[in-house]
C-alpha cells in the first residue's frame, strides 16, 4: 500500500482530484489493504453522521404559520422602508442611541401612516448595557412621539440580560415600570429559555410586573425581522 493515511482520508472526503484520484482508484482495484483501509474510513464517516443525525434538536416555540409567513413577506417591503431595516443600519456606536443617529426615518408616505418597529435585544448582565437599553428605548419612543409617527418597540432579554427584568437583580425595576406605564407601544419580553434555565437551577426569576414571558429570544428576533422590524443588539 503506497498511499498515506492522509491520502486515504482525502479520497474518502472527496478531496483528491485529477491524476491523484485516478492513481488512487487504479490502486484500489488490486490493493486489498488499501480497500480495507478506505472501507474503515468510510464506515467511520457513516457512523459519525448517523450518530448525530439521530440527535433530537430542542423544539422551538413557533408563532408562525404558513399564512403568517406569506403575510409577513408581503408586508415586508412597506415596513422595510419605514423601519430602516433595508438600510442595514445596525448599531455601530454603543455610546449613542439609534434615535440620535436618525436611524430610521425613511418614510414612504406621511408620518401619520409610517410605522417604525424595533426590537432591542440584551443578552448579558451589564449594568451599563441595561442603562443603554432603556436609554435607547426611551429615546426612540420620544423621538417618534415628537414626530407624531407611529412606533412599536420591544425590548427582549435573554441569558444574563434577563437580570434587567428581575426584581431582585436589576437596579432599573422602577424605570422599567415607569416606561411601561408611560408608553403603551413598548413591550418588555423575557426569553423563555433563560427563564427555564434559572428554574432548572432552582432560582425563581421573579420578573417585574411589566415584563411578559415570550418565546425564546432567537425565535422572537427572527419572527420580528421577518416582519420587517429593525434589530438592535445592545
Amino acid at each position, binding site marked *: 500500500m503506497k498511499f498515506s*493515511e*492522509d491520502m486515504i*482520508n*482525502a479520497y474518502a*472526503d*472527496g*478531496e483528491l482530484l485529477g491524476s491523484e484520484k485516478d492513481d488512487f482508484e487504479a490502486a484500489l482495484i488490486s490493493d486489498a489493504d488499501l480497500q480495507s483501509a478506505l472501507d*474503515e*474510513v468510510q464506515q*467511520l*464517516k457513516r*457512523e*459519525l*453522521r*448517523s*450518530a*448525530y*443525525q*439521530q*440527535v433530537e*434538536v*430542542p423544539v*422551538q416555540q413557533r408563532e408562525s404559520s404558513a399564512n403568517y409567513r406569506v403575510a409577513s*413577506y408581503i408586508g*415586508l*417591503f412597506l415596513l*422595510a422602508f419605514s423601519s430602516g*431595516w*433595508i438600510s*442595514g443600519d*445596525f448599531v455601530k456606536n454603543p455610546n449613542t442611541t439609534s434615535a440620535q443617529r436618525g436611524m430610521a426615518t425613511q418614510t414612504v408616505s406621511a408620518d401619520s401612516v409610517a410605522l417604525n418597529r424595533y426590537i432591542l*435585544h440584551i*443578552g448579558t448582565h451589564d449594568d451599563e448595557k441595561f442603562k443603554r437599553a432603556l436609554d435607547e428605548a426611551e429615546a426612540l419612543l420620544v423621538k417618534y412621539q415628537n414626530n407624531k409617527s407611529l412606533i412599536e418597540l420591544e425590548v427582549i432579554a*435573554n*441569558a444574563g440580560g434577563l437580570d434587567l427584568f428581575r426584581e431582585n437583580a436589576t437596579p432599573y425595576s422602577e424605570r422599567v415600570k415607569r416606561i411601561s406605564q408611560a408608553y403603551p407601544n413598548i413591550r418588555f419580553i423575557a426569553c423563555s*429559555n433563560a427563564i427555564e*434555565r434559572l428554574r432548572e437551577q432552582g432560582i425563581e426569576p421573579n420578573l417585574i410586573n411589566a415584563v411578559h414571558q415570550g418565546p*425564546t*429570544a*432567537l425565535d422572537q*428576533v*427572527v419572527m420580528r*425581522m*421577518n416582519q420587517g422590524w429593525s*434589530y438592535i*443588539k445592545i
Partner: protein
Amino acid sequence: MNVFKLACRKVALVKRIEQSRSKLYRMALAWCHDPMLADDLVQEALMLALQKIHQLNNDAAFNGWIYTILNNVWLGYLRKSRPTEDIDKIIVADSASPEHEVLLVQIDFVVRSAMAGLPNAQRQVVSLVDLDGLSYSEVADILQLPIGTVMSRLNRARKALSSSIIKNRKLYQDLSSSTDKDKFDQKKLRVVK
C-alpha cells in the same frame, strides 16, 4: 441600488439563518457534548449571525460564515469557563458510570462517547468534515488553520475514534454475552428511569 432585490436577499438570509439551527445544534453538540450548552451556543451564534447579517457579502460563503460564528462562540465559552486550560486539548468526556456502560450498547452512543473523548482540536475538525461534509479548505478557513494541520488533526481524530469505538464495542459484546442478565437488566432500568 435595487432595493427590492436587497430586501428579498435579507429575507432569504434571515430564513436561511433560522433554518441552520438544526445543523448548528448537531455541530455544537459534537463539540461540547452537553445538550443544554449546545442549545445556548447555537442561540448565541444565531443571534450574532442576525446582528452581522449585513457583513455576509457572498451567499455562497454562508456555511463557512455561520460555522465561523459558532466556532467563535464556542471558543469564547471555553476561554471563559476553562481559562487555564489549553483549548485544543480540552476533552468533554463524562467519567465512567454504570449508566454510561449500559448506554454504550447503543452504537450512536458509542460513537458520540468516542467523540467526547477526543481533544477539542481534533473533535472540531472531524465533526466539520464528517457531519456537514465541509471541504478541508472550508474547515481551514473556519478554524483559522493551515490545511496541513486540518489533515493531520483529521487523521489523528479518526485513528483515535476507530480505536475507541472498537474498545467500546468489545465492552458491548462482553455485556451481551454476560450470563448475569439480571444485573444487566437492572442497569438498563436505571438508565430508563
